[in-house]
């Protein structure tokens, strides 16, 4: 307890520097929490789209079911396909009826014979889609290949960008946080130079003197990350209805509160570790024997 009271005494003595350290730690943890949540959410969205049929192949009239099933087998043998569903003309008609149940006029003009049979294909990985498309387009019985290339490509590139930009931002903020904590701790050590000298003359060990400075760094990390996760929690409470409606139908989005709490916990531990690391560097630099 005595060590903690020393920490608070240090902070009271130069409160603005302490505040600066807490704010920068809060910003870092906030950015890091947002990036982690966004990355987890985008991963869920991407994985949802990856499980949806990404290529739909329509066959020319007169293509027999056996020919289609042979092609289905060939596709399965490539090892790039996670799921293939054969949609017969009758099933296509049922789907059409379901989609247009409120339009009786449209239903009257259509019969199963004018709808093509199709294969709905999901790839094991989005990067296989191009080669699967080329494979199908080379078959003469294939009339059209509908490929949601743009959606998948855009999701992939957004996911990649989010991860890369987030990583760069995090590294930048991390370095900045550590430098600020080194600066604040170094300043405090300089201000307390004579007090440190007196304590040494009274028999204080090096670690007795160092510990309050290290705890101070941990405390900055704790308070900063606590503020950040509290703010993120409020934002999530406010935005969750919008997220839910925007990603309707995608399972696991928004993330569960259990997962959010886990992310918050990890972020707080991370914040404290960053604080401890920064103050440890400062102590090592300015308080050696």
């Amino acid at each position, binding site marked *: 307890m*005595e060590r903690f009271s020393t920490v608070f*005494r240090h902070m009271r*003595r130069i409160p603005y520097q302490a505040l600066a350290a807490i704010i920068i730690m809060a910003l870092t943890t906030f950015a890091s929490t947002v990036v982690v949540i966004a990355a987890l959410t985008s991963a869920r969205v991407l994985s949802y789209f990856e499980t949806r049929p990404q290529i739909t192949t329509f066959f020319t009239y007169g293509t027999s079911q056996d020919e289609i099933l042979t092609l289905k087998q060939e596709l399965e043998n490539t090892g790039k396909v996670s799921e293939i569903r054969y949609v017969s003309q009758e099933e296509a008609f049922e789907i059409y009826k379901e989609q247009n149940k409120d339009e009786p006029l449209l239903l009257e003009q259509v019969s199963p014979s004018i709808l093509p049979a199709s294969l709905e294909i999901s790839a094991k990985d989005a990067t296989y889609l191009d080669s699967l498309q080329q494979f199908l387009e080379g078959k003469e019985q294939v009339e059209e290949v509908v490929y949601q290339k743009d959606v998948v490509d855009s999701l992939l590139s957004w996911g990649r960008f989010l991860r890369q930009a987030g990583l760069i931002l995090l590294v930048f903020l991390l370095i900045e946080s550590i430098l600020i904590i080194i600066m604040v701790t170094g300043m405090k050590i300089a201000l307390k130079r*004579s*007090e440190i*000298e*007196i*304590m*040494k*003359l*009274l*028999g*204080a*060990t090096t670690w*007795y003197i160092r510990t309050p400075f290290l705890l101070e760094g941990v405390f900055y990390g704790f308070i900063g990350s606590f503020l950040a996760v509290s703010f993120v929690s409020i934002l999530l409470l406010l935005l969750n209805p919008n997220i839910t409606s925007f990603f309707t139908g995608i399972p696991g989005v928004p993330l569960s509160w259990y997962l959010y709490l886990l992310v918050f916990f990890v972020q707080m531990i991370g914040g404290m570790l960053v604080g401890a690391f920064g103050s440890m560097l400062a102590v090592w630099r300015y308080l050696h*024997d």
Partner: protein
Amino acid sequence: MTKDHKSDEKHSNEEVTKEPMVKVDQVSKKFENGTVALVDITFEIPTEGFAFIVGPSGAGKTTLLRMLIRDVVPTEGNVYVNGFHVSHMHPQSVPELRRKVGMVFQDLKLLSDRTVFENVSLPLEIVGRKDSYVEETVDKMLQLVGLFERKNVFPAQLSGGEMQRTAIARAMVVEPDLLLADEPTGNLDPATSWEIVKLMETINKLGTTVIMATHNVDIVNSLPHRVIFLEEGRIVKDQKGARYGTV
């Protein structure tokens, strides 16, 4: 510190415990800027003894006292304090030595942002004593030095004598085997100076070895203690109950 170091120091402790509280053997000190502070100093102070170190400013009194807590390391010779081979001890053992030696510094070194109580309790906090023990011991010590009623005030609100007594209380609170006092009566009026000296004598009678550096002629001449005279870093006289004026 390694086990070997500890056992070496423990071994030297055992060797020296039967010997004087302080043993300074052919010690010289030359600072990096070329100043020669001490030259071939040799003396011993017995356990529970009381000795004055006197001499003009710059004679080396403060350097000698600082050497006894390893704040200054001798260039030559050996220093033994309370069983520690101070001049050759491992840096990590220095706190252990300083916890057994109380020192009243010439500039007092009180922490201005802490109360009298907090200043006096600092050495006990450093050794990790429990709060209840700290409170009881510090209160007792403040009563001994007559500062109990002033325990919640800051050093800036104290008189010179009160500040000296605070520094003495801080040095004594860990019940050290040796008390070093560097000019504890400097800048004090005669009456207050006598109060401080009486306090030192009381502490000595309680079993603590006391070494006091001073240039207060009246005090030295009126007490029957040993006096070591320093001049230009050398001992020029070492005798019991000497008269300062006779040097």
